């Protein structure tokens, strides 16, 4: 009797254990991902017969000459294709996919038989839509620049912060005090620093015309060199080469808080009447702006660091928010070429607005109608065009 019970129990246990191992996926195929930079492989397989009850599928990879497998991803049930990212185009890979049951039991793997090597293509097709957008936007900028050259009047709204530049320099001149220009704490490879140099050119020219003292401490030596060149030529074009003093444009330190400690001390001692903070700033933004506020300076700030904008808005008289900062050079120069580029930016905004409306409208329609076609269009838009 006891032997019969034991045998029955063993049978039940074995049957239960066998029932927990799910049926595995089959027919795993791996092919090189078309039109990419040689870092992806496309996998496809047939779903497990137990797909409805699965936790998901585990995808693994290994090098052809290395038995050690690496888990890449766990995918939801119903998935029969996957693009393996971050591969080396010079190595051959083998892949395996297993089905995972709810109790984490894994099926026998579906494996690729021959190693696959991702190949580098002549053009990275995953960036095609980005290129199309870039060409459209750049084309619009170039077209508007050409239109501006033909003499067409292009209206640009008033930017209070830029109107205040002349006023600030004038005030410093009247008070017999200096102007302070801080071009951020990043190097010349940062677009904000380049934009800052462009604005510095206009501020320096105004300072030269008003005979105001302009001081430019920098936290990078390359920025110091570029700033000197910019200010020197601005003074030259204003007809005041004699007033240019290279010692007023100098290097302080690369260290963020060391730089701000110097700037603070200098502001307390010399009390500049106008302070310009234009460039890339981080935590030092508020320290600079509050110090300028405490000495009663008129302050104009501009940055493309969104986290620092509230600090500048709270502590400065005028703040150039994001795109206004990049528009500053064009606005101040008033040259048709540059004004054209501003109008080109508007076309970019139009493209973005159309994209937002199309995306929101498409997703709403897909949710309301339940249409697979609209959903697939929205998926293509969000997963292929926007990534």
């Amino acid at each position, binding site marked *: 009797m006891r032997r019969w019970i034991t045998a029955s129990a063993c049978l039940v246990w074995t049957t239960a254990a066998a029932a927990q191992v799910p049926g595995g996926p089959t027919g795993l195929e791996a092919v090189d991902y078309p039109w*990419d930079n040689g870092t992806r492989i496309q996998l496809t397989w047939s779903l497990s017969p137990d797909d409805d009850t699965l936790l998901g599928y585990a995808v693994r990879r290994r090098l052809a000459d290395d038995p050690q497998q690496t888990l890449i991803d766990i995918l939801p049930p119903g998935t029969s294709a996957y693009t393996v990212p971050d591969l080396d185009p010079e190595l051959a890979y083998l892949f395996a996919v297993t089905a995972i049951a709810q109790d984490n039991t894994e099926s026998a793997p579906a494996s690729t038989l021959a190693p696959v090597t991702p190949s580098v*293509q*002549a*053009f*990275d097709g995953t960036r095609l839509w980005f*290129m199309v957008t*870039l060409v459209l*936007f750049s084309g619009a*900028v170039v077209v508007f620049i050409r239109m501006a050259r033909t003499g067409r009047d292009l209206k640009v709204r008033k930017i209070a912060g830029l109107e205040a530049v002349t006023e600030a320099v004038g005030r410093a001149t009247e008070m017999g005090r200096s102007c302070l220009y801080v071009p951020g704490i990043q190097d*010349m490879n940062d*677009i904000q620093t*380049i*934009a800052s*140099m*462009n*604005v510095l*050119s206009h501020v320096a020219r105004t300072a030269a015309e008003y005979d105001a003292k302009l001081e430019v401490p920098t936290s990078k*030596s*390359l920025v*110091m*060199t*570029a700033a000197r*060149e910019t200010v020197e*030529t*601005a003074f*030259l*074009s204003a007809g005041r080469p004699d007033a240019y003093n290279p*010692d007023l444009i*100098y*290097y302080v*330190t690369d*260290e963020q*808080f*060391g730089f701000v*400690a110097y700037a603070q*001390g*200098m502001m307390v*001692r*010399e009390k500049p009447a106008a302070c310009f903070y234009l460039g890339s700033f981080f*935590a030092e933004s508020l*320290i600079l702006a*509050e110090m300028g506020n405490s000495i009663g300076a008129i302050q104009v700030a501009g940055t*493309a660091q*969104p986290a620092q*904008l509230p600090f500048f*808005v*709270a*502590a400065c008289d005028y703040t150039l*928010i*994001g795109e206004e*900062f*990049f*528009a500053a*050079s*064009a606005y101040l*120069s008033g040259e048709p070429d540059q004004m054209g*580029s501003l109008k080109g*930016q508007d076309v*970019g*905004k139009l493209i973005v607005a159309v994209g937002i409306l199309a995306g929101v409208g498409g997703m709403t329609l897909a949710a309301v109608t339940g249409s697979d076609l609209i959903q697939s269009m929205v998926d293509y838009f969000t997963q292929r065009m926007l990534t």
Partner: protein
Amino acid sequence: MKRSVPLLITAVGGFALIVAYFIPYTEALGETVAVWFDILAAIAFILGGGNLLKQHLKKISDRGPGWGYSGVVIGSFLITLFIGLSKVGVPPLAEFPDFAWSGDFIGIGTPFWFIYQYAFVPLTATMFAMLAFYIASAAFRAFRAKNLEAILLLGTAFIILLGRTFAGVALTNWIDPTGPFAGLRIENLTVYIMSVFNTVGNRAIMIGIALGIVAVSLKVLLGVDRSYLGKE
């Protein structure tokens, strides 16, 4: 010539990086251009050090305002430079005991490490700590209820600040978290404001910044905006 060569370098370097982004075979070209910048920056660092010395020595010589601080800067600069370059107090590596300079100059316990850990880090932390006081003074001015916009700003900031504190959350604990008014609990209001209003505003600014960056880059690459070279 003085303008043409920099413009040519800018255009070639910029367009090389753009092309490298789309054509995988030229990715190495983009990396090479980035290395050019690193070489330039490294050489310019010597220029910066020289300028630092010149600037502060002149200030000491002229007895300009704050010249004493310049003395401290030069002293600290030279001492740190000497200790770092000559590896003062750095023991040689165990693998190369006969080579006195084989040790790591910033290894734990070395004089350079000591300067960094017990002089530089505390000084930096002190400057950073001042930010808390500046935030308070800036907030005091920003949150004055002068007009409708300022009142809205003040109200929103008040909710966010309350939502970040235990006491604030406790204020609306009596609202059923699963009921129809659960959204009015302070912590939920805070999340809603941050994830909807704040995100929307932030993204609008980010889109404008992205477009601005492309426009400026294009102007610089095409030589339309040459202000950074001093052109007027």
